């Protein structure tokens, strides 16, 4: 066991994190930090979060022993933490519920959010419908085209989706635009950030809201196996499902933690999203973290078949955990993820999100190297309905070649 108590009071994880925001946002982030600390200690607030997670989201999510997958890999027992069974189909709603209730507590009835694939946007729009909050979602023009169905979903839920044309017109630009909107509207608007990134207290707060994943998992595996797992695997976009899964295990140094980034077409090509593997520390979106950037410090575009991993940075806590050596980070290519996507469907009858398929692909290799008496848990962060079209067209293209 090690003691782990980060971030410090300035929101730093070692050299990472912090609050690198324009002065106009300092008041809102300081206020948010104070209100969040109060809410965290308020049993009534915690009870309301718990109630919605149980009655609305459908928690606890099951920990499923994937027997067929285990046999296939021929090593460690593989368990799946079924975040795909949450309402709206991914872990994103755990955080959306927490932050939306916090906004209500702060008297803010307007919510702004960014989204890439649309999963966080849909989760946010959903909770805003439930709590009667105004919702505006910024989404890169490219993603609006690629994820038309999720745009329609958000609109059905009553959200306003704004297509962002600036910069590369993808997730990073949607974050820029959401931040600009927040700068101008912080008086009555809460920025519901979707991952463990951005200025303090977001990385800490989003981690805390997502920790329900790891806390449940820890209890469930102890009950089933009578011991902690040897390995835990999760995919990394901004880093929220992984941070939520890892956090309750950080002190258990015997549990190996594996974060899986998107290697896209390969980490030796320009087309990947492996910020920890190939990036350098830098500042964007309010935080010091590993970033894909050129030699002049210009942020580069990320590439992955999975839109949810398509972000050139990674949360500050992951950046710290990499340097500290507590989490091992590796990457999986588009091709490997696509195979794992199909394999899980065939072997277990579960179609995973393409993001989660990265974790599955890595876990299969890892489990094969482990003993049969050992256990490995995969955070299955979301379901794959949203990706079926993408995968179908890729498979078709492959067959016609």
């Amino acid at each position: 066991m090690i003691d782990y108590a980060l971030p410090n009071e300035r929101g730093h994880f070692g050299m990472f994190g912090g609050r690198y925001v324009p002065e106009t946002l300092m008041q809102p982030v300081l206020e948010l930090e104070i209100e969040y600390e109060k809410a965290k200690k308020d049993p009534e607030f915690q009870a309301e979060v718990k109630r919605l997670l149980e009655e609305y989201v459908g928690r606890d999510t099951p920990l499923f022993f994937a027997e067929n997958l285990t046999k296939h890999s021929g090593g460690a027992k593989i368990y799946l933490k079924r975040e795909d069974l949450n309402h709206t189909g991914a872990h994103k709603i755990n955080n959306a519920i927490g932050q939306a209730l916090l906004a209500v507590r702060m008297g803010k009835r307007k919510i702004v959010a960014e989204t890439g694939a649309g999963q966080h946007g849909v989760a946010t729009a959903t909770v805003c419908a439930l709590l009667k909050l105004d919702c505006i979602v910024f989404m890169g023009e490219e993603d609006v085209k690629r994820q038309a169905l999720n745009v329609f979903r958000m609109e059905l839920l009553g959200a306003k989706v704004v297509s962002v044309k600036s910069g590369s017109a993808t997730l990073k630009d949607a974050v820029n635009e959401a931040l600009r909107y927040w700068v101008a509207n912080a008086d009555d608007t809460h920025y519901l950030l979707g991952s463990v990134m951005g200025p303090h207290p977001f990385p800490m707060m989003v981690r805390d809201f997502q920790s329900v994943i790891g806390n449940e998992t820890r209890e469930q595996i102890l009950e089933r196996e009578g011991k902690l797992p040897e390995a835990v695997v999760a995919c990394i976009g901004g880093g929220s499902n992984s941070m939520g899964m890892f956090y309750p295990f950080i002190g258990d140094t015997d549990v190996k933690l594996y974060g899986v980034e998107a290697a896209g077409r390969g980490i030796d090509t320009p087309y990947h999203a492996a910020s920890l593997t190939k990036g350098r520390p830098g500042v964007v979106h309010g935080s010091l973290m590993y970033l894909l950037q050129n030699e002049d410090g210009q942020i580069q575009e990320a590439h992955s078949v999975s839109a949810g991993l398509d972000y050139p940075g990674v949360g500050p806590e992951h950046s710290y955990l990499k340097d500290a050596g507590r989490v091992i980070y590796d990457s999986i290519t588009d091709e490997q993820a696509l195979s794992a996507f199909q394999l899980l469907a065939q072997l277990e009858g579960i179609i995973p999100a393409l993001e989660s398929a990265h974790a599955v692909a890595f876990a299969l290799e890892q489990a094969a190297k482990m003993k049969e008496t050992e256990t490995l848990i995969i955070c299955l962060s979301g379901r794959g309905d949203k990706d079926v079209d993408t995968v179908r067209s890729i498979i078709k293209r492959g067959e016609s070649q």
Partner: protein
Amino acid sequence: MNRIQETFKQLKENGQKAFVPYIMAGDGGLGCLADRLLTLEKFGASLIEVGIPFSDPVADGPVIQQAGIRALANSVSLRDVIVELKRTKGNISVPILFMTYLNPILSYGVERFAEDIREAGIDGCIIPDLPVEEEDIIAPLLEKANVELIRLVTLATPPERIEMISQKGNGFLYTVTVKGITGTRKEYQSGIGEFLEEVKRLSAIPVLAGFGVSNEEQARELASFCDGVVVGSRIVELFIKNDLQGIEKLVSSLHKETMI
């Protein structure tokens, strides 16, 4: 006394307000930077802000965003701008300030940055995504190199904080006069005059108003409450149109003879 302080002392003695135009380095090609600086000095700029292009300028509106994109399309980097200014150093005599986001500096190396910009004759540096809480990452190095870190306060900054921030600096206090990002505005929210006067009362150093200043009338009005104005997006627009007359009119709007 550094050159920024000298400039404000001089202005004060002459009963003048400061007009600080902003241009994006590399917009129109790096080749026209020195020329534009000369033009602005000739028209009466008191100090000049030189913007460094960045891929993700969260504090900027569309005009400066687009200028940055054009500069990046010309492959202009922080390094190039420093080299160019070093080459043309001595051509102009008004103080020059860098306006740059933090990441290009981190990538360049903070220590080397402080030394190199001093050598290139840069007098101060504005870093819009560096609040005072995080400034230790670079402030001591800039101080050592005798480059002034210009700090910002905004409409959302409470009085105690304005006072605390103003006490850290020796140059001027950059007061953001809108709740929002850079870009021209038709009008300011009411009470802007009182706010600037309050900042003046709280600040130990000169106070400049910036963000959104779009024409001569606004410049004169805002300047009447403080020590001068910074004008960005409008100057950038006028340079794109090559409207030198318009620039001259705007930059000279605070000259005594036009201030009737």
